[in-house]
């Protein structure tokens, strides 16, 4: 699994590639925590390259989402969610909780 982080002017763009399972979820967590440790809370997670997302990965995303939204300081928004992953989000009841966009450009622009 690979995570790439790009710091744009106002938003951080995180691209995830491969499988996010119990083994690799900590990497994703570290990347998101690393951004928020810099007091940056507007984050787009581009899931185009995501092959699989387990409950461990969902827990990381949800925990980060709670942190980013605290005091209205920011948000974590999703881009390019593969349909399989959409199904997983729906199964977990999380599809309505994350704002999703069809492209990273749209997601970044939404902030």
């Amino acid at each position, binding site marked *: 699994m690979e995570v790439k982080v790009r710091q744009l002017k106002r938003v951080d763009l995180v691209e995830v590639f491969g*499988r996010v*399972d*119990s*083994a690799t979820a900590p990497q994703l967590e570290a990347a998101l925590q690393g951004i928020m440790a810099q007091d940056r809370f507007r984050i787009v997670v581009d899931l185009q390259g995501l092959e*699989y997302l*387990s*409950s*461990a990965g*969902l*827990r990381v995303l*949800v*925990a980060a*989402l*709670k942190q980013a939204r605290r005091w209205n300081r920011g948000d974590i928004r999703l881009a390019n969610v593969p349909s*399989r992953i959409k199904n*997983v989000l729906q*199964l*977990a*009841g999380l599809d309505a*909780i994350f704002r999703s966009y069809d492209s990273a450009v749209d997601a970044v622009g939404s902030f």
Partner: protein
Amino acid sequence: MPDRFEMTVPSDLANLACIAEFVTHAARRLGLSEQQAFEVQMATDEACSNVMEHAYGPGVAGSISIACELEGEDLVITIRDRGRPFDMRNVPPPDLTRPLADRREGGLGLYFMHKLMDRVVFRHDAETGNELKMYKRRLP
């Protein structure tokens, strides 16, 4: 065409990826659709993660075996380990209707296993260890 596929690996989270590949391949070979194979792979991944995280203690070496075979029209995944018994009934299901801030983050893996598979049966035997069977009816 063999009816049964089986693998045994050290109970290590790093092995989840190869277990997933194995189960996906086996499920497809046994006649499941791509979508069904993905669901079986996901349920197995969640189940194996639980074993790896809870059955054996930290620093304790153990192995986990995964079998994939047909029983009539059902694909059956059997996961065996010799770690501490884990009673699924002790874990409450997640409440998906509660606001985000209130939700407990545990229980989601088990919830997925039950939603993605048709039947989940856990057994513990003092001699042979833990056995988890998950069934999925093949679509025509």
